[in-house]
């Protein structure tokens, strides 16, 4: 009896091809809808389903790590305690000076007929994971809907005595949230120079090691801006509260044929050392909305 030659029959190959076409069409359509902001946010539902798993694995691995490295953990906890105590002390000082400055600002604004200052509360959170895909730069924090986190809340951090902008909450699950950092290519922040007040838009380049870019700055700012100038959020757009430091100018790019100026800036936050963040909520949107 002759041996049957192995290999797919033509009919089976056709089935495979049809299934392949169907699957790619479905996936393509999904991608088309998702980039157009589809009406139903299926991602939130799916993200919530997996929100517990990550936290569980993080908890298990943290326990094992702490058991094995107990001595190192004790030393680290001591350092962390000191660091957090200092941060708390700084935060209390900031809150006191903010109250003083706020009062002064209120008086000035009454005289100039400005609208009321923004007031926001902090929700502390810890980074528990990063994006599993190397192409995307998001990270996950351990607070979600239950703790009061909402989409489009700004995220800041205290590092080396500086309150710096970290990013924006883009997806919220029951117990976790996903944050798009300020260096993401899809991150756009309305900003201004702290001293000269020239405005622009800060965006990332998708890579934590690449500098942030501030564009659409008026050309006449060229003579007034310097290396090392602080860039802060302008508060326009109502997404990020104003006055939060984004970074400092590291390079000024001026082309005669361009209609505006571009600068590169080093982020105020060192993301490689970032562990704890604060999600801030504005109590009102005031006059800083466009």
């Amino acid at each position, binding site marked *: 009896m002759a041996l049957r030659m192995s290999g797919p029959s033509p009919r089976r190959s056709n089935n*495979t091809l049809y299934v392949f076409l169907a699957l790619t069409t479905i996936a393509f359509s999904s*991608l088309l809808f998702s980039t157009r902001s589809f009406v139903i946010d299926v991602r939130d539902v799916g993200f919530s389903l997996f929100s517990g798993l990550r936290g569980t694995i993080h908890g298990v691995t943290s326990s094992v790590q702490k058991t094995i490295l107990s001595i190192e953990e004790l030393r680290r906890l001591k350092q962390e305690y000191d660091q957090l105590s200092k941060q708390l002390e700084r935060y209390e000082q900031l809150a006191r000076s903010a109250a003083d400055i706020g009062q002064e600002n209120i008086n000035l604004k009454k005289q100039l007929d400005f609208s009321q200052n923004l007031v926001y509360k902090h929700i502390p959170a810890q980074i528990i994971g990063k*994006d599993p*895909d*190397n192409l995307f730069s998001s990270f996950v924090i351990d607070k979600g809907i239950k703790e009061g986190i909402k989409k489009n809340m700004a995220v800041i951090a205290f590092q080396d005595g500086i309150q710096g902008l970290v990013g924006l909450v883009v997806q919220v699950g029951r117990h976790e949230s996903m944050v798009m950092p300020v260096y993401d290519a899809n991150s756009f922040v309305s900003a201004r120079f702290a001293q000269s007040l020239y405005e622009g838009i800060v965006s990332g380049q998708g890579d934590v*090691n690449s500098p942030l870019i501030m564009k659409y700055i008026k050309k006449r700012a060229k003579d007034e801006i310097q290396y090392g100038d602080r860039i802060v959020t302008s508060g326009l757009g109502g997404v990020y509260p104003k006055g939060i430091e984004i970074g400092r100018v590291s390079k000024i790019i001026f082309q005669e044929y361009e209609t505006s100026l571009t600068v590169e800036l080093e982020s105020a936050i060192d993301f490689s050392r970032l562990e704890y963040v604060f999600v801030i909520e504005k109590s009102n949107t005031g006059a800083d909305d466009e």
Partner: protein
Amino acid sequence: MSKTIGWATVFIIIAGIIQSSLLSKIAIFNVIPDLALIILVYVSYVNGSMTGQITGFASGFLLDFLSLAPLGFNALSRTIIGAVVGLLKGTFFLDILFFPALLCAGATIIKAIIVTVIHFLFNANTPAYNFSNNILWIEIILNAISAPFVFAFLKLFKKVLTPRKEN
């Protein structure tokens, strides 16, 4: 086949969560190996295109929930990778070291090409690898190094990840 696809999808999702929570702490130049891709390559090579593309589709959709990727991004790219790798079923002997590394390195390059095509098709609304950047090449090397270990681990689960007659 459905059992294989189901188990493979579970393995891939667990790998995705491990990549997100554990491997991100030991990233090299902020790059981590794509364990989910390596598992997909193994399942596709051992089972063929049909299983590979369905596994890629299902796991890709679920991975989109874990990532900032638009819904459908990973589903599309991994469906194609699963289908392409599945075409190579039985072509070469799956040794311990060399072929898994080569296969996964190749799959990573295919992923980069697919992602670039998607980037152009969707008006740069999705990211793409910069071929002159280190990120892609570091990921290729990490995937190639991790592949033999992951393949060896997956061979322990032959009963659920391979067709019954081959078991």
